[in-house]
C-alpha cells in the first residue's frame, strides 16, 4: 500500500520530466553550496585550531594576562610571569612537571637572505624528555637537542623550503639567529602547525643567556600526574600565583587553563564566521523550497481532474494528501542526494585549488558524516514542508467540482 504511493509519486514526477528536473536542480544547487561551504569551513576551522591544539588534556598552560592573539603567548602582556614560578608550581601535589617556555623573536639569516622568525626553548635535564613527549617532538632528519648543545638548533620543516632562503637548509648547515652563528643538527617532522613548522628550537640555556635580558617567561606548561585531579591542581596553581604576584581573588592578572579552553574563544569566532557564510548559502535552499511549492501547486492544479476521479472511486483526503506529500518529499531528497555528491566534489575541488593558488596547507575540506546526514534529512524536510500546503489543498478538493474542472 505504502509502496504504491511512492510508485504513483515517482510516476507523476517522471511524467513531467523537465519540470521535475528544474525543481530538483533548484534544491540541488542550494544543498551543494551549503555542503561545500560548510565542509570547507569545518576543514579550515579544524586546521586553524589544530595550529594551536597540539597539547594533550593533561596539560595546563599558565600565562600572564594581556591582549589575546596579539602575538605569541607572553607578548603584549602587562606583568609577565617570572622564571622562579615553575619550580614552586612543581612542588604542588599532583603536578608531574612545570616547564618554562621562552619564545624570542629575532632575525634569521641563511644564504645571505633574512627573515624574522621566533625561537623557543627545550628545557635541560630531566624535563627534556617530559617536554619532548608532551609536545610529541620528533625529527625527520638529524637529531633532537641534548644537554650541552651550545649554539646548535633544530629547525621546523618550513626552513627546508627552497623558496624561503634561496636554497634548502640541511642538517650540518650554519645559520645566523640574531647575528649568532648556529649549527643545524636536526629538522623536525612536518606537523602542519606553524608553531612547529616555522620554529627555531634551541636549548634553554642558550636562549635565555644569549637573547633574554630579563627574568620573564612566556608560558609555563604544567603536566599533571592524574587527569582526574586537574581541577584541584588548577585551583592550587591559581592560589599560589595570587600569593606570589600579590593579587586578590577576582583580580587575577594571569590565567591557568587547559590549551583546549584557551582555544575556545578563537574557535567560537571562527564558528561564527562559518555560520554566517552558511546562512547566506542557506538562502538558496529556501529559494529551492519555494520552487518545490510552486511546482506542487502547478501539479495539483493540473491534476485536479485526476484528484476528482481518485476521490470518486474512494480515495480519502488522507490518501490524496500523502500522494502529493510524498511527491514533494521525493523532489527534495533526490535533489539533496545529488547536491551532497556535488557539494562533496566541489568542496574538495575548491580546497585543492586553494592549496595550489595560496600554497597554504590550512585550506582543507572536511565533510563529516553528520553533515551528509543532516543535509539529506534537511533536503527531505524542505521538500515536505514546501509540499504541505499544496498537498493539503489537493486533499480538500471537492470531488464533484474537481471532476468538472477544465483548464
Amino acid at each position, binding site marked *: 500500500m505504502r509502496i504504491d504511493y511512492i510508485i504513483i509519486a515517482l510516476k507523476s514526477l517522471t511524467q513531467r520530466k*523537465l*519540470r521535475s528536473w*528544474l*525543481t530538483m*536542480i*533548484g534544491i540541488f*544547487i*542550494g544543498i551543494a*553550496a551549503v555542503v561545500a*561551504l560548510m565542509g570547507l569551513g569545518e576543514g579550515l576551522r579544524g586546521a586553524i585550531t589544530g595550529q594551536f591544539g597540539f597539547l594533550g588534556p593533561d596539560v595546563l598552560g599558565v600565562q600572564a*594576562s*594581556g*591582549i589575546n*592573539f*596579539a*602575538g*605569541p603567548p607572553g*607578548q*603584549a*602582556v*602587562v*606583568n609577565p610571569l617570572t622564571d622562579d614560578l615553575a619550580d614552586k608550581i612543581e612542588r604542588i601535589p599532583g603536578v608531574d612537571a612545570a616547564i618554562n617556555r621562552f619564545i*624570542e*623573536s*629575532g*632575525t634569521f*639569516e641563511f644564504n645571505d*637572505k*633574512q627573515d*624574522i*622568525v*621566533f625561537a623557543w626553548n627545550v628545557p635541560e635535564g630531566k624535563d627534556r624528555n617530559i617536554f619532548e613527549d608532551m609536545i610529541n617532538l620528533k625529527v625527520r632528519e638529524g637529531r633532537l637537542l641534548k644537554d650541552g648543545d651550545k649554539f646548535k638548533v633544530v629547525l621546523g620543516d618550513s626552513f627546508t623550503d627552497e623558496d624561503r632562503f634561496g636554497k634548502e637548509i640541511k642538517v650540518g648547515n650554519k645559520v645566523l639567529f640574531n647575528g649568532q652563528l648556529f649549527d643545524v643538527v636536526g629538522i623536525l617532522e612536518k606537523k602542519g602547525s606553524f608553531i612547529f613548522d616555522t620554529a627555531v628550537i634551541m636549548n634553554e640555556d642558550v636562549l635565555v643567556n644569549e637573547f633574554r635580558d630579563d627574568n620573564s617567561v612566556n608560558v609555563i606548561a604544567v603536566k599533571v600526574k592524574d587527569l582526574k585531579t586537574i581541577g584541584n591542581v588548577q585551583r592550587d596553581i591559581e592560589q599560589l600565583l595570587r600569593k606570589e604576584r600579590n593579587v*586578590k581573588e*577576582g*583580580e*587575577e*592578572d594571569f590565567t591557568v587553563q587547559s590549551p583546549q579552553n584557551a582555544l575556545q574563544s578563537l574557535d567560537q569566532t571562527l564558528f561564527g564566521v562559518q555560520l554566517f*557564510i552558511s546562512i*547566506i*548559502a542557506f*538562502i*538558496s535552499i*529556501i*529559494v*529551492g523550497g*519555494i*520552487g518545490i*511549492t*510552486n*511546482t506542487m*501547486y*502547478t501539479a495539483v492544479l493540473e491534476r485536479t481532474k485526476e484528484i476528482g476521479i481518485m476521490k470518486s472511486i474512494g480515495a480519502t483526503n488522507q490518501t490524496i494528501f500523502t500522494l502529493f506529500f510524498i511527491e514533494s518529499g521525493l523532489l527534495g531528497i533526490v535533489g539533496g542526494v545529488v547536491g551532497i555528491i556535488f557539494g562533496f566534489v566541489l568542496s574538495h575541488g575548491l580546497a585543492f585549488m586553494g592549496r595550489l593558488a595560496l600554497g597554504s596547507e590550512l585550506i582543507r575540506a572536511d565533510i563529516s558524516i553528520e553533515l551528509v546526514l543532516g543535509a539529506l534529512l534537511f533536503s527531505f524536510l524542505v521538500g515536505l514542508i514546501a509540499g504541505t500546503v499544496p498537498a493539503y489543498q489537493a486533499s480538500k478538493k471537492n470531488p464533484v467540482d474537481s471532476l468538472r474542472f477544465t*483548464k
Partner: protein
Amino acid sequence: MNLELIKYAFLNVKKRKLRSGLTILSILIGVTAIYALISFGVGLQNYVNVIAEQAGIDKLFIQSRGIGAPGTDENFRILRDDIDFVEKINGIQEISGIYFKTVEVKKNRQLKFVFGSGIDPSKIDFVEEAFTVGVEKGRQLKKGDFDKVVLGHNYQLEDKIFKKSVALGEKIEINDEVFEVIGFYEKIGNPQDDSNVFFTYDTFESLFPDDKDQFGFVMVKANRNVDPSLLAERITDKLRKHKGQEEGKEDFFVQTFEDALQTFNNIILILSGILVLIALVSLIVASVNTMNTMYTAVVERTKEIGIMKAVGARNRDILSIFVIESGILGAIGGLIGVILGFLISSTGGKIAAQAGFSFLQPSFPIWLTIGSILFAFFVGAASGSLPAYRASKLKPVDALRYE
C-alpha cells in the same frame, strides 16, 4: 505596440497570482541578500575613504617588523635615534614617534587589558590629525600632564569596558598607578581602538622606564609638493644605511597611508565579493524557478499561442510576450528585494553600531539600487528566454490542436 505587449504580460502575471507570487518571492530573496551585502561592502569602503581623506594622503608611517600584532614585538622597535635621524631627511614636514604597550586598567576591582599609547604633547595636533580623532569631552594632553590620561570613547559607556561608565575628572588605576581622566576621544568605531588610553611621553616613560626611546610606530607627514611614496622610498633607503642594514634585510618598513588603506580596501573588496558570490547562488536557483514557471506557462497557454499565431502574431511577438513576462517577474522581485535589503541593512547597521562596530555601516548609492533592479530584470528575462523561444517556435496548427 510594445506597450500592448507589456500590458498583456502584466495581465498574465496577475492572472496566476500564486505562481507569480512564489516566483517573485524566490527572486526577491536573492536580491535582498545581495543588496544588503553590497551595501555593507560599499559602506566599509566609504569609511576607509573618509579616513583617507581626513588623515590626508600626505601621511606615512614607519613601523618595525616582528612577530605578532604591529608594535607589540619588543625585540623590534624604532629608536629615538632613528627618529632624530629621519627627521633631518628632506621632504618631511612633521614626525612623531608613538609609544605602544599593553596596560592594565582597573576600576572598582574590574580589570581590563588594553593598549596604551604615549604621545609627544608638543605634537598632539599632528598625531590627532593622523589618527583622525579629536577630543570629544574634556581636553587633549599637553606638556606637563603627569598622572593624567585621555581615554578612548568606550569608557564613557556603561557595560562596555567597565560595568559603570567613567566620568571626566574621575580617578582610574593603570598598571597600579592612579590617573586622573582629563578627556575622552571621539568614537573611532571599533571596540579595540575605542578602548585605548593615551598618556604624554613623560607619563609613559615613568610607567615603563625600560621602554624609554623605543617606539611602536612613527607617524610622518610629507611636505607639500613631495610625493609620499617617493618619500617612503627615500626614508627606507637612508634609514637602512643609518641602521647599517642591507637591502632586503631591514627590520622596519615605511608605508604611505594611501597604500595601507588601499590594501585594506582590497581586502574588503575580496571578502564582500566572496559573500556576494555565495548569495548569487540563490539567485541562480531563483532563475531556475523562473524558468520552470515560464515553461509551465508556455505549456498551459499552448492553445492561446496557437490562436495568436493564427491571427497573425509573428514568432518575434510571441518571444517578446514571454520574455517580457519573465522580465516583469524579475523586476518586481528586484524592487521588493531592494526595499527589503534596505530595511535589513539599516537595521543591521544600527545593531552593529550598538555593539561598538560603528564603522560597519551600510551605504546605499543610487547605482546599487538601480543596478539591483535592472539585474533582477535581466535575470528574469534571461531565465524566460528559453521557454519563450520554445513558445515562439510552436507550430500554429499543432498548438491549436493541443489539449
